[in-house]
């Protein structure tokens, strides 16, 4: 038990913070503590959680990726176009196309990073600009509203009428999110590849001497994120019922902040799926709660930013480390 507490300190701290916020919001608003709201939260966070678990794998492998949200936009647009050519298709075709395109874009990053030894932040900032620039250039910023019916129809997996007559629904994105989360969890904790990813992220040179194929690690990590980005792009198109070229622009930094809030470390070798999900949920619960409390939507980001700043500050510092500084500041000796 004590070992569990120690090894899952970030996750437990996040759970505690989320619990406190939830208790507070349940008393402060009458809508928060309902099944309907909980399901709404899940539906709206699905896309971000899919992105987040993908990014987690790259962070564990010691890389960073800025380009995934833009890659998802490219995938959305191409998938919608290809589906138009083949005349419809269905969910399976959609996933195959989106997944394959996503993996391909992820592998471009991996190729640049591994093949030419470009560090991941430089490579992905470059590909961010290339993907986004080309997407906007070729599409002219025009959105696609004419999507196949199967993609835009809402699929309700579970519904229940609440006492006040509103419907609590779980929709398809939640199921896809659950599958992605499970697959990522299985990949990083239940396979040899997963252990190798952690080892590689923690110490690339050591991993290489151990006989781990470091090129394969880069391709697996960025390919996995590409796959998740592709799926998230398709789910986002389903959720929004349209494809807007710059809709996901800027999402990458929000997701990155949430994942790192969940205990993943820039520099690699650390991070868990649970923490990652809790990080995303903490941000979306806060936003949801502020919304229900009637706080102006313009203030959301300010408060969320302040919370992340505080959380990062606190999680990186223990009281003992902070105290000598406080002492020396207050009592000049």
């Amino acid at each position, binding site marked *: 038990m004590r070992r569990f507490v120690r090894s899952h300190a970030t996750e437990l701290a996040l759970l505690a913070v989320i619990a406190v916020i939830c208790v507070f919001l349940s008393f402060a608003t009458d809508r928060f503590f309902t099944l309907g709201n909980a399901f709404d939260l899940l539906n709206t966070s699905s896309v971000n959680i899919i992105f987040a678990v993908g990014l987690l794998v790259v962070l564990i492998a010691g890389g*960073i990726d800025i380009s995934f949200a833009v890659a998802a936009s490219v995938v959305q647009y191409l998938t919608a176009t290809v589906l138009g050519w083949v005349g419809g298709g269905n969910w399976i075709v959609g996933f195959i196309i989106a997944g394959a395109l996503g993996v391909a874009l992820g592998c471009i990053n991996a190729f*640049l990073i591994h093949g030419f030894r470009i560090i991941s932040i430089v490579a992905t900032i*470059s590909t961010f600009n290339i993907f986004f*620039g080309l997407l906007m250039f070729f599409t002219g910023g025009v959105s696609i509203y004419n999507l196949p019916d199967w993609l835009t129809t809402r699929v309700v997996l579970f519904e229940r009428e609440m006492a006040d007559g509103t419907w609590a629904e779980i929709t398809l994105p939640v199921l896809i999110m659950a599958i992605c989360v499970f697959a990522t969890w299985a990949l990083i904790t239940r396979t040899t590849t997963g252990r190798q990813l952690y080892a590689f992220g923690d110490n690339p040179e050591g991993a290489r001497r151990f006989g781990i194929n470091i090129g394969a690690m880069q391709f697996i990590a960025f390919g996995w994120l590409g796959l998740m980005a592709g799926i998230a792009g398709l789910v986002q198109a389903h959720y929004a019922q349209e494809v807007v070229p710059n809709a996901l622009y800027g999402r990458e*930094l929000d997701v990155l902040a949430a994942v790192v809030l969940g205990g993943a470390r820039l520099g690699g070798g650390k991070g868990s799926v649970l923490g990652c999900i809790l990080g995303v949920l903490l941000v979306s619960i806060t936003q949801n709660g502020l919304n229900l409390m009637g706080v102006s939507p313009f203030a959301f980001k*300010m408060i969320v*930013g302040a919370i992340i*700043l505080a959380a990062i500050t606190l999680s*990186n510092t223990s009281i003992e480390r902070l105290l000598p500084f406080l002492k020396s500041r207050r009592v000049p000796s």
Partner: protein
Amino acid sequence: MTVLIERVRNALGPELAGPFAAFVAVMIVFGFAAPNFFSRATFGSVAFQLPELGLLTLAMLLPILTGGLNLAITFTANMAGLTLAWVLQSQGGVDAGVGAFMLGSVLAIAVGALSGLIMGLVIAYTKAHPILVSLSMMIFLRGLGEFLTRGGDVSGIPGFLAPIGYGSIIGIPVPLLIFIACVLIWHVLLTRMKLGFNTYMIGSNIEATRYSGINTRKVQVLVYTLSGAMCAVAGIIMLARFNSVRVGHGESYLLITVLACFLGGVNPFGGFGRVIPVFVALVVLQLLSSGLNLMGASQHLATAVWGILMITVMILRWLAGRLKFLTTNRG
């Protein structure tokens, strides 16, 4: 020939070789591709567009040299611009005097420096990763700005500010003069002052620097504070150029400033890099953008080409490293 190359390299410094080669290449390619490239209009537009991106790049440069990153630059610039705009508005808007502008500018720079100061303190004292600290500061500042302006823009700027955005002295645009002055300040800071030396030291090896008796925390805090102050200068120029402030203006510059730094030969892990090559890299980027524009391509295509240029430079650098490796092995 090799002696000549060696001499040029020594004069320019090793970091300048890459950006300078890119500069020559861009001049040659567009000289042939776009017939009216070598015109007053091209260089005029470059001269007016350069300062905004350039000042933000200078703000990004210092943190990168310490091995960090400041993702909050554009929103820091926005907040500083808003501060100045509000001071001007409270002093009568379009009728505000020069005194109000002076006061507003000082407050704007103070606001920029404050945001940098907070980031610097958190980074220096908690050892949190600079990317995360500046990222959350960015989210916070964007939210704050949107909250205070309700997503709209603040206008009503007195007319005497226009020359700062559009005027020129003996043919050189005023914003460019301000930018060049800032480049020189940064150059002197990094090459002649103790703070600059310590910045490089921290970027190379922070622990070793701390053991050699340098107050690394103080240096880090100062670096981020200066970065914030430089953002504020960019914010003031942006206000003068667009005659209004809007939160989110210049957001697309964020990643391009990082690109410009790396293109200018700055080491992504910190410790190495100089101001002048970064300046040349910026000129290259703007010339590329203007040249493509002349040829009828959009701004978005220019963005993509900037990314491709970056990748190309990185691949060339890798190739150069390989070749050097081969030659030393043989000899």
